[in-house]
């Protein structure tokens, strides 16, 4: 019976492969746009249901990308700005473990991109230990991740690729095990830590490019809050986390440059130095609360 599949399958594979050669280009033709507009209008007339209960409607970036964005904007390495090394055993609840795994993941990314390999290994070990506690340490075992990390320790580009691969495997694991809320809590930790690093280093040089990056990160906060609210029932601590993050968001929304910003523009908001500092203080306070757990 299975043999009957082989020829059609081979043909299908070849046809599909050949078609892949031609599918890398963008499809921006007027005809495509017109067809899509027609479809959108047609479905609207039929009464399209907007459903989002069963799928994510917002994508969160990886901590590595946030670290990369800050680095590309001129954010330099500053000793002592990352979180103190801790034993994973200090974090008891799943919430604390996930939150701090995010914090240490952000520190790991910051160290890798700034060639701080000794610290990177220490942070990697903490992230691994917290992953074990959260039940998905197995992603580190696949593809000999730790060995490959050690083997490429002097090559930041290779390490960044490995971290990205680890992120993908972790995301898949959490999806398949109905634990996406853990990833969202971890991202909250990573976001706060990244903002803390960005804000602290900004104070040294007051770079406007870092300032615009900080305002871009604030855009993520809105999506993060939406996702946390979606998973509110998954962990009793999530509601408090949303309240904490919303305090920062509410302060940001009151800044004059934010209120007057044209969302249709193609430039980010440039925050004043005073407002970056104000955000920095709020983020630092929240981060202290997280790592004190």
């Amino acid at each position, binding site marked *: 019976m299975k043999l009957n599949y082989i020829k059609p399958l081979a043909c299908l594979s070849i046809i599909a492969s050949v078609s892949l050669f031609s599918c*890398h280009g963008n*499809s921006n033709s007027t005809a495509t746009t017109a067809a899509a507009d027609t479809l959108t209008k047609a479905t609207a007339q039929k009464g399209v249901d907007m459903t989002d209960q069963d799928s994510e409607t917002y994508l969160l970036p990886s901590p590595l990308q946030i670290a990369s964005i800050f680095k590309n904007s001129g954010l330099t390495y500053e000793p002592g700005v990352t979180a103190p090394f801790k034993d994973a055993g200090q974090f008891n609840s799943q919430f604390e473990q996930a939150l701090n795994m995010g914090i240490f993941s952000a520190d790991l990314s910051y160290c890798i991109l700034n060639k701080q390999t000794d610290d990177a290994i220490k942070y990697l070990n903490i992230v691994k230990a917290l992953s074990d506690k959260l039940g998905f340490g197995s992603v580190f075992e696949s593809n000999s991740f730790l060995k490959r990390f050690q083997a490429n320790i002097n090559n930041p580009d290779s390490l960044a690729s490995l971290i990205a691969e680890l992120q993908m495997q972790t995301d898949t694991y959490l999806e398949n095990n109905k634990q996406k809320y853990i990833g969202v809590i971890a991202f909250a930790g990573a976001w706060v830590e990244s903002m803390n690093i960005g804000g602290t280093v900004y104070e040294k040089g007051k770079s406007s490019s870092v300032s615009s990056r900080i305002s871009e990160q604030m855009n993520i906060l809105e999506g993060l809050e939406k996702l946390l609210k979606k998973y509110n029932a998954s962990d009793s601590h999530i509601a408090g986390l949303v309240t904490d993050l919303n305090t920062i968001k509410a302060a940001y929304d009151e800044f004059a440059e934010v209120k007057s910003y044209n969302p249709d523009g193609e430039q980010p908001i440039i925050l004043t130095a005073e407002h970056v500092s104000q955000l920095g203080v709020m983020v630092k306070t929240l981060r202290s609360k997280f790592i004190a757990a």
Partner: protein
Amino acid sequence: MIKHTILALLFLTMLAPSAIGQSYEYCDTKTLKDSCKNYLDHPYHYDASNIILVTLEKKAQMKEVEIPMFIGESYRLIFNTYALPAGVEIHVYNKDADHSNRKELFSCNSSDATKKIYIYDTEHYHSKLFIDYLIPAGHSEGGDSAPLVQGCGVLVVGYK
């Protein structure tokens, strides 16, 4: 080119036997995502991924996914339509569905039986991108006893 051909062959060979037996209900997200990852060659790094679960209903549906973007960054969006029911349209816009003046940047659909992976490389800065999945109405024949038509769409995002 040769690498992509081999990867496509492997991918389809892995999925096809299961898909033949299970139609649209087959949704192995790991395999589907891994097949997208094969198109995240250097200089792209994995950033995020999204699974859209689809069940055809009596009425057409739309699901919208928002992706934050950052200035100066180049992104690659890889859509895997293999496990989507036929007729699902995917459109990438610069604004959400509430904006009538939004611009379509890319589109593809799940109807082509021979092409299941689509790639969109961003060209210009947008603070956000919106992915709209337009899901057609299911067949009315068979009433409530008709089997559910389900599937999933996979999106993997990489950055340079």
